[in-house]
Every structure is written in structure tokens, then in C-alpha cells.
């Protein structure tokens, strides 16, 4: 059954040019489900990298600009869009030339999946 979910995520990956990986984790960066292409940078899939966003979004929410929803990081060759879907975090890793707007739109396609996966975290 997890395979169905991974297939769905892989289809989403192929629907956006330059998208390399979709990782859904808990607040500590432990992956709940992960789909990645071979081109995805291995370092960006490590829990240290993924979990940092959980704390960064908490701190960014204290700037009197209401709760932080997403953080987009641009690197030399890659871009990383991370979404706060408490209690889950969604990380999208893409090439630098990928359309960032399309990546930010991806959460609409993940709503159903996130609703189901929230049960995994809350039940634990």
C-alpha cells in the first residue's frame, strides 16, 4: 500500500519539470514517506537537513508576521521548498531552474495524502 503512495508521489515528481524529490517527514525530520529520483542530492535527504526546517519554521513564526507556512531556499544548483503542515513537514527538492510557483502549488495535490498521513503521526 505504501507503494501506491510512492507511485503517486513519483507521478507528481514527473509532472513538474526539475522536481527531484518529495519527502514527508515528522517534526524531527524522520521520513514518513519519501519519493526521490536518482538526481536528488543525497545530503538534502538526510534527517539533519530535513529536521532543521521544523525548528526554523517555529522560530520564523515569532516575527509577528503570523505563522510561517513555507521556506524556500535557493542554492547554486538546487532549490528546496519546505512546507509546514503540522504535525508533518513537506520538503520538495528541485533543480535551480524549476518553476518555484509550481512547487509551491504542490501542496494542493498533497492535501489528501497529508490528511491520511497525519493519522500516522497522531496515532504514534
Amino acid at each position: 500500500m505504501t507503494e501506491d503512495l510512492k507511485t503517486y508521489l513519483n507521478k507528481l515528481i514527473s509532472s513538474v519539470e526539475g522536481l527531484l524529490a518529495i519527502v514527508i517527514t515528522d517534526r524531527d525530520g524522520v521520513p514518513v514517506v519519501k519519493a526521490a529520483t536518482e538526481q536528488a542530492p543525497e545530503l538534502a535527504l538526510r534527517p539533519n537537513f530535513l529536521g532543521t526546517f521544523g525548528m526554523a519554521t517555529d522560530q520564523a513564526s515569532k516575527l509577528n508576521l503570523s505563522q510561517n507556512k513555507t521556506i524556500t531556499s535557493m542554492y547554486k544548483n538546487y532549490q528546496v521548498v519546505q512546507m509546514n503542515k503540522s504535525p508533518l513537514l513537506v520538503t520538495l527538492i528541485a533543480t535551480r531552474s524549476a518553476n518555484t510557483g509550481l512547487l509551491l502549488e504542490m501542496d494542493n495535490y498533497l492535501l489528501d495524502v497529508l490528511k491520511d498521513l497525519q493519522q500516522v503521526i497522531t496515532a504514534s
Partner: protein
Amino acid sequence: MGCCNSCFGADKEADYAGIPDERSRLLGSTTRTVQTQPVSGESLSSPVPTGAPPKDEQSALTRILTKTARNVIDVATIEGQGMEQHEYHERARHYGQKVNVVMANKNKSLKPFLPNGVSAPQIVLAAQPISVGDIELISNAAFKAAKAMKDVKVQHKEDLVVAFGVP
């Protein structure tokens, strides 16, 4: 003499007059409000307990401290909150099992959506294609509009900013 001043009731006088000074309590406003209320039969029968003000102060202080701690942006806490390797693997395995259970209970299959821009794709797909004449008409119109826009020139006649009402 200054140390004896408080012993002789100078503070009480200030409190009685209701004038705040450097010794008046910042958090004791609730108790003061109680004291200034008119004396009635009910207030006489249930006097304010003497232990209440310090407790209120303590809880107010705790509340302020908690709120401040919550609002402080502490980047240092981000570092050094690593997870043990075995704990990470254990939790990942646990999530894997849970995902299997949750997805097994799910009835409808996951299918990628159509883009949001097309709410009724069947109407768009079933529509008659645009005729070549229409395309030429629009192309010509756009070309003429672009040419006209290029030919637009601004002739300077007078200043855009004019002094108004200045003698």
C-alpha cells in the same frame, strides 16, 4: 532616619492615598481594586484571603516568563538537537508500518489531479477549433496595435508638476 521612615507608616499613607511610587507593586492592581470597592454586606461576609496576592503575583510572573520564553527567537537551540541513529531507524520503521495500515484502510485510489486552471476540461476539449480567419484577424489586430504603440511619442509642452496656490 530614612530606614525608619517605612516603619512609621509612610508607605501605608502613600498606599492609602492611591499615589503610585517606586515601592508600589506593579502586579498588585487586582488586590487594590478589591480594596477600593464599596463595602457591602457580601464583601464583609467573604473577605479576600491574605495569601491570595503573593500567589497571583507568582502565577502572573510565571505567565510572563513562559510567554517571553515562547516569543524569544533562539537560534542556538537548533544546534545540538540530534537524534540517535537507532531511534531514527526505529521511528522510521514504525511510521512505515503505520502508513501501510492507513493506506490499506483507504478506499479510493490516489490519482494526480488535472491542473487547477481547467475546472471543466470536457467543455474546452469538445469546443470547435478556432478558424484560420479568426486567427489571422487577431494576429493582424495585435500587429497593428503593437505598431501603433511604437509610434506613440510624447511631446513636451509644459511642466507636469505645477506650483499650485503658491504666491
